[in-house]
C-alpha cells in the first residue's frame, strides 16, 4: 500500500475549505492539516453582509471543529504562516510553529487594498472582508452618524448597503467617473447611480481623496483633489482586492507582474509540490475574484493530487446581484470590446431599467450584456453566451419587455452540457441524472447535487430545469385526471365522442373505477357540456358540478353567494342599472363593479338565489356565468361610436361576440376583449382572445392571460374582416375545448402545444388536420342550443327545490351574519359572530337580512 500523502493547506477560506472536503472525499487516507489564519473556521464570505441582517457567526459557518474532527482533519486556527522552506518541505508560522508537508496548498485568498492616502490608518478607517472587520464596523457605528465608502465597485456598493442598514447616512466616493466600471458601461453606471441616489445614498464620482484629516462637525474630513471635502465618522475602504501572495514571494515562487501566484492548468505553482487555488492564484494572467472559479480550482487540485485528470480552463466572470435593492447584471464582454461587435440597447425611463446586449458581427451570437434595474433576462442571456447558442432571428426580443414573442429559454431548451450551477459545477446533465436516480423535487435535487447551495445565483434557473424535467416525466406518468380515470382530459373527450357517452355514470362504469371525485366530476361535466350542451342541472349532471355550478352562483367565504348578471361588453341602460340597484336594495346585497365591467351582488342566501334571479330575468338579464368554466366577459372600450380615436365599433363587436360564446363550456374559464384602436383601452392582449380594431378590420390575438402568471397574447392574424374573425375564434376556442387539459387556461395550453402558434395557425387557418368543418359544426351546435341556465332553473320546480337551506325546514342558516361597513353589508367576522351569539347586540351592529321571505319560488 502506498504511504498516505501528507497534505498541508494554508488558509481556511471558502476555497480552502472546499478543497479539504473534495480532498477527503477523493482520498480517505490522506493526512490533511489545515492552518487557518483567522479565528473562525471557514465561513460564507459571499453572504458576509447578512451579518447585518442578524445572521450570526454560526449561521455563516461552513464547517465546525467537530465536523473536521469527524473527517479526520487536523486544523489549527489563528495560525498565520510567515515562511515556507521548500528544501525541508515545511512551513513556519508567526509563533514559530513548524508544519511539514509532502504537498502544500496555498489558499490564502486576498486582502482589501487600502490606497496610500495620508491618514488612512486611523481608528475608524476600516475594511470589509472578514467577520472581524464587520464586528469592528458594527462597534464603530455605535458612535457614528455618517459613513463613507471609498470605492464604488461591486463590493463597495455592498458595503454601502451595510452602512445604510446600520442606520448611517451613507456616501460612496469613487475615483472613476462611474460606478462599477468593471462590470457596467457608462449608461448602465449612470442609471445605477441615479437609482442608488434615490435610495438615499450620496454618490460622488471622479473624486480622488488626497487626505483624511480631523473633521469640524464630524470625526473626519476627506479632502479631495478638486478642493472639495466631505465629513464623516467612518471611512470604509473598498478600493479593490489584492491577492495574498506574500508566501509566494518569500518562497520565491513565480508571481504575476501585478501580483498573484502563477499556476498551471493543474493549479500547480512553479514548484510542483506547491499548489495555489482561489483568489491568490493567477491563471493565464487572470485573477478570479469570485467563489465559483475558486471552487473549480479546488476540485482540480484535489483531482491532480490523486492522479486525476481534471484541469482548470478559466471561468466566466459574469455576475448578477442586487445592490442596495437595485438589480444589476453583467455578462461577458459588457464593454463591447470585441472586434466588429454590435450593441443593441433598450432603455426604459418608465420602468427605470437599462439593458444592452453585445452581439457578434452577424448578430447570431451573444458576446455580452449589461442589465440594470431588471435582471430577469440574465439567466437566459447567460446561457446563450456560455453555450454559444444561435440567437433568435430578432435578438432584441430577448431584452424587450415581454411581447409574447420572446422564445422562453426554458430548462428544456438547454443542452445537457450547460452549466446550471457554476459554484458547484453542476450541469443540466447532472440534474437529469439526479432525477433519473430518483430525486423527485427541487429539494432532493439540491441535496444530491449541491446546486444552488453556493452563491444562490442559479436558483431560478435550477428551478426551471428541474420543473421542466419533472414536468416532462410527470406529464407522461401523471396526466390522468385522477385516481378514478386512467386517462387525460383529452382522452376522455375522445371516449365520450366515440362511444356517444352522455352521462358520468356511463363513463365511469365503462372506463373508470370507484365513485369519482371533485377532480374528475367537474372535468367530465365540462366535457359532456362542450360535447352535447345539455342543461347542467339535469339530474344526471347535477352532482358533478362544483357548488358554484350547481347553484349557478359563486360561493363566498361564509357560505352565501354572489349574483352576477351578464352585461355584454359592459354596456348597460339606465333602466338596467335601476333594476339591479332596486334588487340589491330589496335583498340588501353588497354591490361592487367587477374587474370585468359588470356588477356583482354579494351576500345572497342559497334560498334567495331563485327569487333574485327571477326578478333579474323578468327585467331581461341573463346569467353571467361567473361561476362556470366558460365565457366570463368580453371587455370592451367605448370605440369609434364616441371615442375620437376609435377606428371600429368595438362595443358592437364585443356584444356580438359575447352573445355568441356565452354558453360555451371549456376546460377553464376564458375571457375576451375588443379594443377600438391600438391604444388598447380594453387590454385585449391580456385576454384568452383579444381583438384590436385596425383601419382595415381586426387584429386577432390569442392565448393571453392576466391573473397569476400573466402572458401577453400572440398575434394570430391581422386586418381580417368580421366573418373571418368569428371563424378563427370559433375554431381556436373549439380546438382548445377539445384538446386542453383540465383547468388549463389557453395560455398554458398554448405553451404546451407542440409547434406552438405556428401549429395553431396551420390547424385553424390552413386546416392542416382536416378538422375545421367539425370544429365549425360543433361551435354552431353550441351557439344554436344556448339557453340561459337561470331561466331554465327558475322554470323548473324540481331544480328550484335544490335552493333550500334545509330539506326539512324553512329556517335560514344562522351562521350567515352581516355587519354594516361603508354603508353596505359585509360578512361578520368570527369574533363578531361570537359576540352576537352572546347577546351583545349593542356592540355588534348585525344587519337584519330578512327583507322578504325567501322560498317563494320553492
Amino acid at each position, binding site marked *: 500500500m502506498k504511504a498516505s500523502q501528507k497534505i498541508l493547506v494554508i488558509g481556511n477560506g471558502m476555497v480552502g475549505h472546499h478543497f479539504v472536503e473534495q480532498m477527503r472525499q477523493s482520498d480517505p487516507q490522506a493526512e490533511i492539516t489545515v492552518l487557518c489564519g483567522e479565528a473562525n473556521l471557514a465561513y460564507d464570505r459571499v453572504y458576509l453582509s447578512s451579518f447585518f441582517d442578524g445572521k450570526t457567526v454560526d449561521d455563516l459557518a461552513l464547517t465546525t471543529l467537530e465536523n473536521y474532527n469527524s473527517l479526520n482533519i487536523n486544523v489549527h486556527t489563528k495560525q498565520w504562516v510567515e515562511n515556507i522552506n521548500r528544501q525541508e518541505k515545511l512551513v513556519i508560522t508567526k509563533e514559530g510553529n513548524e508544519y511539514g508537508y509532502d504537498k502544500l496548498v496555498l489558499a490564502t485568498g486576498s486582502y482589501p487594498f487600502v490606497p496610500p492616502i495620508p491618514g488612512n490608518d486611523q481608528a475608524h478607517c476600516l475594511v470589509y472582508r472578514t467577520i472581524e472587520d464587520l464586528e469592528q464596523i458594527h462597534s464603530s457605528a455605535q458612535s457614528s452618524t455618517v459613513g463613507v465608502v471609498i470605492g464604488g465597485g461591486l463590493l463597495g456598493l455592498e458595503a454601502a448597503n451595510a452602512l445604510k442598514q446600520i442606520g448611517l447616512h451613507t456616501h460612496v466616493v469613487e475615483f472613476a467617473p462611474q460606478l462599477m466600471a468593471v462590470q457596467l458601461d457608462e449608461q448602465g453606471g449612470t442609471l445605477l447611480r441615479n437609482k442608488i441616489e434615490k435610495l438615499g445614498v450620496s454618490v460622488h464620482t471622479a473624486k480622488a481623496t488626497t487626505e483624511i484629516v480631523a473633521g469640524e462637525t464630524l470625526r473626519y474630513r476627506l479632502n479631495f483633489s478638486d478642493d472639495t471635502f466631505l465629513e464623516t465618522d467612518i471611512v470604509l475602504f473598498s478600493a479593490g482586492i489584492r491577492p495574498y501572495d506574500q508566501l509566494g514571494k518569500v518562497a520565491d515562487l513565480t508571481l504575476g507582474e501585478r501580483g498573484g501566484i502563477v499556476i498551471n492548468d493543474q493549479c500547480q505553482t512553479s514548484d510542483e509540490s506547491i499548489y495555489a487555488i482561489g483568489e491568490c492564484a493567477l491563471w493565464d494572467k487572470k485573477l478570479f475574484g469570485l467563489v465559483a472559479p475558486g471552487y473549480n480550482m479546488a476540485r482540480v487540485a484535489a483531482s491532480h493530487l490523486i492522479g486525476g485528470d481534471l484541469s482548470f480552463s478559466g471561468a466566466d466572470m459574469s455576475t448578477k446581484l442586487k445592490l442596495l435593492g437595485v438589480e444589476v447584471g453583467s455578462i461577458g464582454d459588457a464593454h463591447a470590446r470585441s472586434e466588429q461587435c454590435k450593441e443593441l440597447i433598450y432603455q426604459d425611463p418608465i420602468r427605470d431599467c437599462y439593458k444592452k446586449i453585445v452581439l457578434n458581427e452577424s448578430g447570431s451570437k451573444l458576446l455580452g450584456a449589461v442589465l440594470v434595474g431588471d435582471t430577469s433576462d440574465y439567466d437566459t442571456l447567460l446561457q446563450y453566451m456560455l453555450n454559444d447558442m444561435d440567437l433568435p432571428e430578432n435578438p432584441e426580443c430577448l431584452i424587450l419587455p415581454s411581447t409574447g414573442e420572446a422564445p422562453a429559454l426554458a430548462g428544456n431548451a438547454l443542452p445537457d452540457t450547460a452549466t446550471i450551477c457554476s459554484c458547484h459545477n453542476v450541469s443540466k446533465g447532472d440534474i437529469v441524472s439526479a432525477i433519473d436516480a430518483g430525486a423527485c423535487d427541487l429539494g432532493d435535487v439540491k441535496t444530491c447535487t449541491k446546486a444552488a447551495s453556493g452563491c444562490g445565483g442559479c436558483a431560478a434557473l435550477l428551478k426551471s430545469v428541474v420543473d421542466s424535467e419533472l414536468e416532462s416525466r410527470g406529464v407522461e406518468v401523471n396526466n390522468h385526471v385522477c385516481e378514478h380515470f386512467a386517462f387525460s382530459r383529452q382522452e376522455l373527450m375522445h371516449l365520450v365522442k366515440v362511444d356517444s357517452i352522455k352521462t358520468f355514470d356511463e363513463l365511469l362504469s365503462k372506463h373508470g373505477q370507484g365513485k*369519482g371525485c371533485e377532480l374528475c366530476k367537474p372535468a367530465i361535466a365540462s366535457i359532456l357540456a362542450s360535447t352535447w350542451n345539455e342543461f347542467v342541472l339535469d339530474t344526471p349532471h347535477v352532482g*358533478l358540478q362544483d357548488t358554484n355550478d350547481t347553484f349557478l352562483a359563486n360561493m363566498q367565504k361564509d*357560505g352565501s353567494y354572489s349574483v352576477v348578471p351578464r352585461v355584454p361588453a359592459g354596456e348597460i341602460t339606465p333602466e338596467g342599472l335601476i333594476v339591479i340597484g332596486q334588487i340589491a336594495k330589496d335583498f340588501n346585497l353588497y354591490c361592487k363593479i367587477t374587474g370585468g365591467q359588470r356588477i356583482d351582488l354579494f351576500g345572497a342566501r342559497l334560498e334567495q338565489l331563485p327569487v333574485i334571479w327571477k326578478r333579474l330575468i323578468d327585467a331581461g338579464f341573463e346569467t353571467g356565468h361567473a361561476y362556470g368554466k366558460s365565457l366570463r366577459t368580453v371587455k370592451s372600450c367605448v370605440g369609434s361610436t364616441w371615442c375620437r380615436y376609435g377606428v371600429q365599433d368595438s362595443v358592437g363587436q364585443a356584444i356580438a361576440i359575447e352573445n355568441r360564446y356565452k354558453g360555451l363550456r371549456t376546460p377553464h374559464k376564458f375571457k375576451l376583449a375588443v379594443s377600438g384602436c391600438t391604444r388598447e383601452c380594453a387590454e385585449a392582449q391580456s385576454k384568452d382572445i383579444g381583438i384590436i380594431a385596425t383601419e382595415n378590420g381586426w387584429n386577432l390575438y390569442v392565448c393571453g392571460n392576466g391573473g397569476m402568471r400573466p402572458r401577453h397574447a400572440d398575434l394570430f392574424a391581422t386586418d381580417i374582416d368580421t366573418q373571418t374573425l368569428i371563424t378563427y375564434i370559433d375554431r381556436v376556442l373549439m380546438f382548445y375545448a377539445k384538446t386542453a387539459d383540465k383547468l388549463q387556461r389557453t395560455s398554458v395550453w398554448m405553451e404546451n402545444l407542440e409547434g406552438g402558434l405556428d401549429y395553431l395557425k396551420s390547424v385553424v387557418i390552413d386546416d392542416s388536420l382536416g378538422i375545421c368543418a367539425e370544429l365549425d359544426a360543433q361551435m354552431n351546435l353550441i351557439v344554436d342550443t344556448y339557453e340561459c341556465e337561470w331561466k331554465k332553473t327558475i322554470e323548473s320546480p324540481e331544480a328550484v327545490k335544490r335552493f333550500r337551506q334545509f330539506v*326539512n325546514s324553512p329556517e335560514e342558516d344562522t*351562521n350567515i351574519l352581516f355587519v354594516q361597513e361603508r354603508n353596505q353589508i359585509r360578512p361578520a367576522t368570527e369574533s363578531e359572530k361570537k359576540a352576537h351569539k352572546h347577546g351583545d347586540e349593542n356592540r355588534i351592529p348585525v344587519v337584519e337580512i330578512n327583507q322578504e321571505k325567501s322560498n317563494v319560488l320553492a
Partner: protein
Amino acid sequence: MSWHNIGSLNDLVKNSGVCALVNEQQIAVFFIPDTPNEVYAIGNYDPIGKANVLSRGIVGSQGEKLVVASPLYKQHFCLDTGECLQDTAMSVPSYSTKIEQGCVFIHSQPNLVTSVA
C-alpha cells in the same frame, strides 16, 4: 325521539347532498345509490372554512372511502366517520341513518368518535 324523519328519499339528490335541520343541528345528508348505506349523514359545518357548506360539496371516493370535498377549500371528509382526511383534528360528527318506507331517518346523537391511530 332520537330518530328523526327528515322527509322522503325523493327529496334527496342522487350522488349529491342536501342539508337537514335536526335538533337545531345542521346535518349534511348524502344519497349515494349502490353503496352499503345509501344515505350518509355528517355535520354540515366545515371547521376549516368555518361555514355551513359541506352538504354542497362534491361526493366521491378516495381509495375505499366515500368522501365529500368541501366546496370552500376542498378538504375531504369521510361520509362514514366524519373524519377529515387531511387533518384528523378537523373531523366533523357523523350520524346514523336508515331508510324506512321511502323516508329518511337520522339519529340525532352523533356516532361515537372512533379514534384514529
